[in-house]
């Protein structure tokens, strides 16, 4: 049954050819450090799924944001789990992305012909940090408020454009509901769009070029 449906679809979509190219491709002899990218992708999918679920109850306004987060954590069935996965997943993302990058540096895997994979990876690192920075404000508690106050003040130290960066980040002089709304918008629309775009380039190149082997003595 499943096989005949698969054949029916394959005649029209040619998915088996693509499946083989993606998952049955030849790879060099590698070690467990090479799974860090896949691990990051796995946690990213977790962040997307749990993040979408959180938006069902979360409201990004100063009078409701904190109440909705409390409601999710204490009232909604499995809300503590969904939020917990998103919360700890966020930290895991940063850790895994950095470890993945360190492995690529260590093995020299950024070299020709994988420069664009590397550049897009650097873009993804910035996107992940952006997610962390904007997501931290959303619970709208004291820690969130003061962390973002400090974070935006740090951005202000940037030479020449710093003052302007702070104003754009906060949406004004002070950290207000305007800041919360724009951080939310960036967190759930701008950054996911950027992530998906850069991630597709990144993964396409992994499949197209293949992964690098562990460098030998002569490399």
């Amino acid at each position, binding site marked *: 049954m499943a096989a005949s449906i698969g054949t029916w679809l394959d005649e029209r979509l040619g998915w088996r050819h693509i499946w083989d190219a993606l998952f049955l491709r030849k790879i060099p002899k590698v070690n467990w450090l090479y799974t860090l990218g896949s691990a990051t992708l796995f946690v990213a999918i*977790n962040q997307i*799924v*749990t993040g979408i*679920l959180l938006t*069902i*109850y979360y409201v990004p306004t100063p009078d*409701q944001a904190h*109440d*909705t987060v*409390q*409601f999710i954590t204490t*009232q*909604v*069935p*499995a*809300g503590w*789990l*969904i939020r917990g*996965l998103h919360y700890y997943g966020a930290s895991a993302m940063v850790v895994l992305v950095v470890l993945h990058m360190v492995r690529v540096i260590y093995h020299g895997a950024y070299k020709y012909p994988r420069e664009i994979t590397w550049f897009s990876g650097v873009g993804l690192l910035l996107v992940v940090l952006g997610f962390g920075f904007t997501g931290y404000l959303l619970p709208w508690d004291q820690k969130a408020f003061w962390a973002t106050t400090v974070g935006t003040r740090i951005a202000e130290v940037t030479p020449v454009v710093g003052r302007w960066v702070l104003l754009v980040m906060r949406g004004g002089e002070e950290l207000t509901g305007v800041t919360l709304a724009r951080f939310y918008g960036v967190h759930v629309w701008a950054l996911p769009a950027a992530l998906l775009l850069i991630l597709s380039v990144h993964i396409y190149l992994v499949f197209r070029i293949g992964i690098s082997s562990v460098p030998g003595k002569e490399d």
Partner: protein
Amino acid sequence: MSADDAKEPQETQNDEVNRRAFLSSVTVAIGALISAGLGIPAVAYIVGPALKRAEEQEWISVGSASKVELGTPTLFKANVERKTAWITDEQELSVYLLTEDGRDYVAMSNICTHLGCRVRWIDEQGQFFCPCHSGVFAKDGSVLAGPPPRPLDRYDVRVEEGTIYILGG
């Protein structure tokens, strides 16, 4: 590469579970486990608040019994504090009160039983009209014409020291 091929020569013909088939079914099993581990809580998370039972009903004061006109449904409005999830707000509850003798009162909801629009008492015709799909109700709330499937809903009424209370939530 050729050495690898030689080790598993009949991989494709072999009906027994080989390394590749075993690993791919283990992968599928782990994937299914993780999907269920997140999928089942996700369903509970989405439907949970929808299945929550309504709050206890209580007697709500709607106004003075002396303001109800004899033989004519009179509209009363009461403000009720409602708590939905994390939001507590005041909602306006509208109710038509009818008495024929000044002793027995009937309280009817002004919500059309068809699709929830608000009905209105029109004195000249002596009927309730719903503007949305032309539902018509009689003075006692029974359906006279149009699509409504049942009479207007009624509240339990209590009169205490000249004040009318209805049971609602």
